[in-house]
């Protein structure tokens, strides 16, 4: 039994050291990944247990943080919620999801026939980057649109257990994926959060990209490349079973083996990470561990071969075939639409008249009239919501940028079914006559709102 220091340190808990963040990844991307995992998991649980969505389902998703508030007066606005991580197969194994039940409930429910967009309304098959995508159907339930897609590797390869769907802006879309082993294809149901428009029928262009990861993992792939036989080669060698790799030179010096290679096809084949190794006659593999394969161009890997006989060594490769991006553009017709009307209520707020307008994706609280810059109560509220630097617009209206807080516990929406929703604060603006506070939230039907509480003051719809 051997004790390594870093393993001994597993028991330590420390927060005393300030690490310089020289390598920091995008927090936006991490947020999306994390929240989508959570949302997907809970959505899946709720879909199949009949439970209502958890409170945070309604909360603003990070993907929306860069999206301006747009009142949806057009037909269908697709705004994205989350992405799938982990296949439905895995979830099914965990007893979380019964995919067949899900499919049946969504696509084969007789009561829902009127809501199903026919396959004719969908565009045809798209092939991109070696993956064929066929839209199979679409369905609208409430304000969610479900689109069923079939994905297949045209070369017969097994698709990844993890497929991400993105919209044209690169934002992730929630999805559940199942695999049909008989056809080696994946069936995905992606979900769009929609707000409907004024027309009785609508067509929207849905542009999708899918990223398949972990499509294939190889373990110790023998490259049939005997090192000794290729010392000093002058002609590039393309390796069988590894056409992504071209060996351009092999040389040894002082016990170090250098293998020069060109991986200009790596990007095409999508190997994201990989390790090269040397297999000795007894099967032991000496790994070279820096085989990150993103970049194209000429590279060299070095091995310390020590006392090994160069003529007995062969090259092996292990890697992860990943990140194949596929795109498509489908016209999807939804046969049912419902107009969302904003709703306004009035209530007394500290002896001021207040209006709250609930739209499909935003909540606006307008305190008017009578606001002046000298109103201490409102000033305090505004300060608590805004950054300190104010922006003065041309017409004299003061607009404060969004503060780096995602949610305020002081503004809540009580729904008629008893749930509480916390909208995301977006901006505040005011002049001498009124003060506007804007919040953004995932879709909530205005008629489902019982009341709105704003810093201790409750506004209730009276109609």
């Amino acid at each position, binding site marked *: *039994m*051997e*004790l*390594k*220091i*870093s393993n*001994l*340190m*597993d*028991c*330590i*808990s*420390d*927060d*005393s*050291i300030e*690490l*310089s*963040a*020289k*390598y*920091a*990844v*995008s*927090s936006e*991307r*991490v*947020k999306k*990944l*994390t*929240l989508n*995992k*959570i*949302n997907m998991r809970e959505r899946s649980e709720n879909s199949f247990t009949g439970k209502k969505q*958890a*409170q*945070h389902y309604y*909360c*603003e*998703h*990070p993907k929306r943080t860069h999206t301006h508030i747009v009142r949806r007066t057009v037909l269908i606005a697709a705004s994205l919620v989350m992405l799938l*991580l982990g296949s439905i197969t895995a979830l099914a194994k965990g007893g979380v999801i019964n995919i067949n039940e899900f499919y049946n409930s969504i696509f084969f429910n007789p009561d829902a026939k009127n809501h199903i967009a026919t396959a004719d309304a969908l565009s045809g098959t798209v092939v991109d980057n070696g993956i064929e995508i066929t839209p199979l159907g679409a369905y609208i339930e409430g304000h969610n649109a479900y689109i069923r897609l079939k994905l297949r590797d045209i070369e017969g390869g097994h698709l990844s257990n993890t497929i991400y769907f993105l919209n044209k802006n690169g934002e992730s879309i929630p999805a559940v994926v199942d695999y049909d082993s008989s056809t080696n294809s994946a069936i995905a149901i992606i979900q769009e959060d929609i707000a409907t428009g004024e027309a009785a029928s609508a067509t929207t262009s849905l542009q999708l990209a899918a990223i398949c*990861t972990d499509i294939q993992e190889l373990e110790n792939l023998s490259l049939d490349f005997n090192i000794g036989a290729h010392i000093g080669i002058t002609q590039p060698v393309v390796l069988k079973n590894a056409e992504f790799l071209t060996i351009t030179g092999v040389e040894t010096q002082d016990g170090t083996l250098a293998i020069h290679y060109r991986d200009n096809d790596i990007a095409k084949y999508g190997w*994201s*990470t990989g*390790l090269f190794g040397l297999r000795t006659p007894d099967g032991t593999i000496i*790994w070279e*561990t*820096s085989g*990150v394969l*993103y970049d194209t161009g000429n590279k060299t890997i070095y091995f310390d071969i020590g006392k090994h006989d160069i003529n007995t060594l062969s090259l092996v490769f*292990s890697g992860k075939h*990943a990140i194949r991006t596929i795109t498509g553009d489908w016209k999807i017709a939804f046969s049912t639409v419902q107009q969302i009307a904003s709703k306004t209520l009035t209530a007394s707020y500290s002896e001021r008249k207040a209006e709250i307008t609930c739209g499909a994706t935003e909540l606006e609280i307008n305190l008017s009239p009578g606001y002046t810059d000298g109103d201490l109560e409102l000033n305090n509220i505004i300060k608590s919501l805004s950054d300190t630097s104010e922006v003065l617009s041309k017409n004299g209206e003061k607009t404060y940028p969004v503060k*780096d*807080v*995602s*949610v305020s*516990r002081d503004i809540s929406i009580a729904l008629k079914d008893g749930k509480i929703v*916390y909208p*995301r604060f977006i901006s505040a603006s005011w002049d001498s006559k009124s003060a506007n506070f804007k919040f953004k939230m995932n879709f909530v039907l205005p008629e489902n709102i019982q009341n709105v509480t704003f810093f201790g003051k409750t506004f209730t719809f009276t109609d």
Partner: protein
Amino acid sequence: MDDSETLHAIRCGDSNALACLIDRYTPYVSTIIYNVIGSCMSQHDIEEVCSDVFLALWDNIGKTDASRLKAYLGSIARNKAKNKLREMGAEVHIDDCIILTSDDDLESEFLNRELADLVRQFILSMEQPDREIFLRHYYYCQSVSAIADDMQIKVSTIKTRLRRGREKLRLKLIQGGKDYGIENLKPNGLYI
């Protein structure tokens, strides 16, 4: 919102509060993951591990104390990154010496707990800057040159202090091990 308020909001099921927390701690978490994993993995993979860290926080939010949040996240990040490395068949890239060997099964729960106690005692007994150097290298898996950069200390000094730290830890484990009835700890013959 401070950490305490944010954790409270997360406990209430508020994913936006979690998003806040992710904004706040992603640089810290991703730096630890990168230190452990090095260049073996793509940025995409590192983001994946980062999200797993915050997912673990979400799942264990009831057990998380705001005053220890940073340490908790650091610990999860380190463990997740090491697990990812193991999946890849790789090891941490620092000079991770085998400090001792033993004939006993040191993975047994009892011995593990006793050894952990000894290591904690040792770390607490170290003086600065030795303690920080040791933690940076063996806990946060920072390279010697990165430590030298961050702490503005010569590389040779860092190496010397690490070597002294290893020696002291080895002695502590051998002597302390006897107190705990762990008799078979012996210096690794190859270890210098």
